[in-house]
C-alpha cells in the first residue's frame, strides 16, 4: 500500500495525507497524517481502543475515522489521497497469473542474491580488520537470509491495478453519491471556519465548533434540510428548546437552487449553481 511510502516522508515535504477506505469507512492510520488533518481543521473521531480500557473513549487512539464529507473535502482541496482497502488488494491478488508469480520469484531471488553479497562483503571487511584469513561459511550466510519481499501491489504491473481500479470505482462512486447531498453544507460551514463533528450527540447532522473542539464548546447543532422540504415545527421547537438548554443554536442549512438565485445583474451570482442558506433557531425566552 502506498501508505508505506508516506511513512518515512517528513511532514513539511509531504503534501498529502493518506486516507484508507475500508468498508466505506475513511480511516487515517498515521499519526503524522492525523496531526496534519487537525492543523487543517479536520478533527475526526479516534476509533482505536486499548484492550485494557475498551469502554473509555477518552483513551481512544489511531485509526482516525473521518466523515465522508471530510474525506471529500480533503481530496478536493488536495490535502489527501484515498487508498482502497483490503478488497482492492484481494482483487489484485485474484488476478495474479503464474507469469506474475514467476516475476515475483525472480525479484525475490535477486533480492536474496544482493543480500548474500552484502553480507559476504561485510564478512571480508571484518576479516581484513582481524588480519586473519578464514574460510567464508557461505552456506551459513545463505541460510541466514530469510528476508522476504512482502507481496504488495507495488510489485505487480500497472495494468493489473488499472483493471482492478475500474472494477471498484463503481461501488465507490455509488457510496460517495450518498454524501453528495450534504457535502455543500459541510463545505459552507468549513469555509466559515467552523470545526465539525458528527452531530448525533445533539440530534443533528453536525455539531459545529468555532475552533478546535478541545478549546471551545460547540456553537451550532446543524441540520440539513432540502429547500422545499418541511422542517416540521415540532422538530423546530424540540431542536430550539434543546439547543437553548445546552447553550447552543439549532441551525438548518439548505441548498438554494440555481433558478432561485436573485440579483441576476451580478455576474458572480449567475455562475453559482447553488448557494447554501442557513437559519438559526433558539427559544425566545418568553411565552
Amino acid at each position: 500500500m502506498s501508505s508505506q511510502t508516506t511513512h518515512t516522508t517528513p511532514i513539511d515535504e509531504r503534501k498529502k495525507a493518506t486516507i484508507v477506505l475500508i468498508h466505506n469507512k475513511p480511516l487515517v492510520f498515521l499519526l503524522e497524517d492525523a496531526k496534519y488533518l487537525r492543523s487543517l481543521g479536520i478533527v475526526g473521531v479516534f476509533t482505536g481502543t486499548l484492550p485494557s480500557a475498551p469502554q473509555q473513549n477518552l483513551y481512544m487512539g489511531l485509526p482516525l475515522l473521518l466523515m465522508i464529507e471530510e474525506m471529500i473535502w480533503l481530496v478536493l482541496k488536495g490535502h489527501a489521497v484515498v487508498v482502497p482497502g483490503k478488497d482492492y488488494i484481494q482483487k489484485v491478488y485474484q488476478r495474479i497469473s503464474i507469469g506474475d508469480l514467476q516475476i515475483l520469484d525472480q525479484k525475490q531471488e535477486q533480492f536474496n542474491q544482493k543480500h548474500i553479497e552484502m553480507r559476504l562483503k561485510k564478512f571480508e571487511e571484518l576479516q581484513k580488520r582481524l588480519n586473519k584469513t578464514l574460510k567464508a561459511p557461505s552456506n551459513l550466510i545463505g541460510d541466514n537470509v530469510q528476508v522476504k519481499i512482502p507481496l504488495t501491489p507495488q510489485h505487480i504491473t500497472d495494468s493489473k491495478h488499472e483493471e482492478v481500479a475500474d472494477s471498484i470505482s463503481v461501488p465507490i462512486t455509488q457510496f460517495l453519491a450518498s454524501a453528495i447531498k450534504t457535502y455543500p453544507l459541510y463545505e459552507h460551514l468549513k469555509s466559515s471556519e467552523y470545526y465539525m463533528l458528527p452531530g448525533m450527540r445533539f440530534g443533528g447532522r453536525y455539531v459545529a465548533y468555532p475552533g478546535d473542539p478541545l478549546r471551545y464548546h460547540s456553537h451550532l447543532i446543524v441540520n440539513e434540510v432540502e429547500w422545499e422540504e418541511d422542517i416540521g415545527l415540532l422538530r423546530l421547537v424540540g431542536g430550539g428548546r434543546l439547543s437553548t438548554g445546552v447553550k447552543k443554536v439549532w441551525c438548518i442549512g439548505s441548498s438554494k437552487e440555481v433558478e432561485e438565485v436573485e440579483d441576476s445583474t451580478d455576474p458572480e451570482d449567475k455562475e453559482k449553481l447553488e448557494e447554501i442558506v442557513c437559519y438559526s433557531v433558539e427559544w425566545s425566552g418568553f411565552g
Partner: protein
Amino acid sequence: MNKETLVSQVKQNLSFYNLWSDITEIQTTSFTFLQGKPKDPLTVQSTIDSTTDGISSELTKEQEQGQIPYELVYPIRLDSKLSPRDIHQLFKELEDFKGFKIEKIIAGILNDDSTIVYYNIYNGLVKPRRN
C-alpha cells in the same frame, strides 16, 4: 380555524399575557406579521456571526439609546408546513416591506390547546446567547 383567528389569538397572547405594547399587524404580499414592543427587553440577544452581515443599523441605534426595539412575530400553527424556502420568503417579503435588512423573526407557534411558544429564527448563523 382561519388565519384571522390565528393572528388575533397570538396578538392577544402577546398583549395580555406577555404584556407587549404598540402591537400592529403588518400585511405583506402573502404573510401577516405582528409588530410590537415587549414589556422588558428580551434576554441578551444572540450575536450575529461575523461571517454574515452585521445587524441592521436601525435596531442597534434603538438599543444604544436604551429603548426597547420593536420585535416582529410571525404567527403560525404547529401543524403547518415550513420549509427553508418559506423562511426565505418570510425574510424577503418583510425586508421588501420594511426596506432594510431583517435579522430576526420570532415565530409564534400556536397549538390546538392554545399553547403559544415563541422561537427566534435568525437569517444566517448566529453565536449562542451568553447566559
